[in-house]
């Protein structure tokens, strides 16, 4: 953890990690005895479900709850559905866990063998919504957006993370192939890729417009890339998609290329595990694998009061269980020892201004937080620029009063959206 320096007259500078080249390849993890698939739809007991515990599933089979549901998952294995469970995330969005028990004896005849592999967005929406790397098909097919530029995040957005850099360098060929496929599917005419400016690895990025991003956090966040490299400053509350730009993980392209090359779906997600000492491990795990399996594979001990973070230290989220499954957009898992878990307090803002000085979006966080604490979300947006926030978390990182600023802000934005939707 980077501490305030002894003399702190200048702004603290957090830098991104460069690719850890000592890890040449990702260790493959065997398919565990049970997989948990995460479906973003709640069980509705009034409706008749299409699937239920005890049902046999085939590898690659599309699982959805009801006839009229859009969310689906693909079963990574042939086996039996063991049970359903419900889950809810940080903001109270709910969904369903589908637990599948793999059956090694089942024949690997997946539905896909028959299906025509079409290079169309419709096909992608139907079958490729859950590929490793999480291709944002719902964005690409959304008629409200006119996606013309695709930015591949070759530079990881959060500090410490290097999974995207690894995928770009280790699977460059597949990624380039995947980019061609995606370009053919969509109306995008510009394919960009962010690459850390001081990354020395030589990769052939044929067909890409290379954007060299600085090593200072948060220059790899979408809003910053838009502003610094695409010359499009997002207006408050806007997202890159509104400007016709879609950000995609390199792994999504790799998966895409593999699928069209082999005609079979892929389920291996590349993940970087960062242990308490900061040591990195690279692993390839089947989607649905409980992350506890990854810990035991590398003998990483999880103790009482430790913290497991999915994502990086600035923007990730903490999970309450080591059974959390591997999901298509999980790049990094980080374990933090109970000793270094920073204490957050319910202090009032003391107006020290640290947050104001560090905020890359010039937000008066010191005033904003007062309104967020009072649940005045509209005022927070109108007068104190809540919607300009690019969600970098730097304000929380420096807050002298140890206020969970970033959480207040994320929650505030969420509440604001809810308010507006209901209005």
């Amino acid at each position, binding site marked *: 953890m980077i501490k305030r320096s002894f003399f702190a007259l200048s702004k603290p500078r957090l830098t991104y990690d460069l690719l850890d080249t000592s890890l040449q390849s990702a260790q493959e993890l065997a398919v565990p005895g049970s997989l948990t698939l995460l479906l973003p739809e709640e069980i509705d007991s009034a409706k008749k479900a299409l699937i239920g515990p005890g049902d046999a599933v085939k590898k690659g089979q599309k699982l959805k709850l009801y006839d009229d549901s859009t969310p689906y998952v693909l079963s990574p294995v042939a086996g039996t559905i063991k049970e359903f469970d419900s889950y809810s995330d940080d903001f109270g969005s709910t969904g369903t866990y589908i637990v599948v028990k793999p059956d090694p004896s089942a024949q690997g005849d997946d539905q896909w063998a028959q299906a025509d592999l079409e290079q169309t967005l419709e096909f992608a929406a139907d079958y490729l919504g859950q590929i490793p790397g999480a291709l944002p098909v719902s964005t690409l097919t959304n008629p409200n957006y006119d996606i013309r530029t695709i930015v591949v995040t070759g530079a990881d957005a959060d500090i410490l993370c290097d999974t995207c850099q690894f995928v770009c360098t280790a699977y460059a060929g597949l990624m380039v192939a995947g980019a061609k496929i995606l370009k053919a599917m969509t109306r995008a005419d510009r394919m960009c890729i962010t690459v850390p400016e001081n990354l020395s690895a030589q990769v052939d990025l044929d067909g890409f417009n290379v954007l060299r991003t600085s090593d200072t956090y948060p220059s790899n966040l979408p809003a910053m890339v838009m502003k610094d490299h695409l010359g499009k400053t997002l207006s408050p509350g806007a997202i890159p998609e509104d400007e016709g730009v879609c950000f995609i993980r390199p792994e999504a392209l790799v998966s895409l290329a593999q699928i069209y090359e082999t005609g079979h779906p892929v389920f291996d997600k590349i993940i970087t595990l960062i242990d308490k000492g900061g040591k990195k491990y690279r692993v390839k795990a089947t989607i649905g694998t409980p992350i506890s399996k990854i810990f035991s594979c590398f003998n990483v001990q999880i103790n009482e009061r430790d913290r497991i973070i999915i994502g990086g230290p600035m923007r990730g989220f903490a999970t309450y269980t080591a059974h959390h499954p591997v999901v298509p957009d999980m790049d990094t898992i980080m374990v933090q020892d109970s000793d270094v878990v920073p204490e957050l307090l319910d202090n009032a803002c003391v107006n020290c201004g640290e947050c104001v000085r560090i905020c890359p979006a010039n937000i008066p966080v010191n005033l904003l937080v007062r309104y967020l604490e009072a649940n005045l979300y509209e005022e927070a947006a109108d007068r104190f*620029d809540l919607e300009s926030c690019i969600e970098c978390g730097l304000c929380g990182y420096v807050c002298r*009063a140890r206020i969970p600023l970033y959480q207040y802000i994320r929650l505030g934005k969420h509440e604001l959206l809810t308010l507006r939707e209901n209005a």
Partner: protein
Amino acid sequence: MTNTKLIVSHAPFWHNGDSLFQQNLNFFIALLPAALFGIFHFGAPALGVLALAASSAMLWEVIMSALSKKKMAIADMESAVIGLLFGMMVPATMPWWVVITGTFIAVVLGKFVFGGTGGNPFHPTLVGLAILTMSWPAFLDFDTAYVSYQFDFTALAPLVALKSQGTSALASFSNYDLLMGNEVGGIGSTFGLGIIIGGIYLILKGYARWEIVASFIAGILITATLFFVLHPDTYAPPLFHLLSGYTLIGAFFLAVENSSSPVNRIPMLIYGFLGGFMIILVRNIGVYPDGTILAILLINLVNPLIDIIRPKALGKGVSNA
């Protein structure tokens, strides 16, 4: 691993380690050179006053937190700093009951009535001092406070002498003496050099904003120079103003208090400059000999009005929707 209790909290999961305790500890450390000099200079009574001021302020904090059922924040040391600053600005001979009344006003009226830490629109110490100045000015009279002392320098408070005797009094105070603390005044507010060293330390540590300090001093020097150049016989030279009275402690330690000062750059510059400007106005035109307390309370008051000048947030005014 099944039932391992994990900590769930929110991003960011790193923190730069800064805290209110660190802030106040550094204020405390930065105040030490000037405070120690005061003890050395004014003897045991000075130590008594400083100790009483700091401890009574902390006691008021404990009592008030208990009464208002607020979380005990005594360990943050904020009250200790409020109390210490109070002690450093009063004479070493101040009676104990005046000291504790002063810290009571500072902590209770200066801080708690506004909701505690972070809520105070004025510097709490100054609230205490201002009310004492109005109610019992005799206890803050540095000329009478030290009558029993033997000094080997002019035992007159420089600014009071200036006010009553005019510029003829200036001959008794060299800039060197003022810088080295050879003057009478508050326990910890006379040793200019110590205050400057402590103040610079605080700036370098990032706990005082240099913009405020620099513009405050610039405000003093520029305004005083204007007066001095126009009427050198009537007004004191700029350096005299900078080095005497509460000016330095005001610039380095009082004007920079977080809650009552701006955070944006341009407002900080305006705020500081205005403070320095007001001090000289009070001294040269007004009735009070010093004016630092008044001037800082005044800029505290206008702080919310000027701190709205701030850079445009990202994407504001962009019309590429």
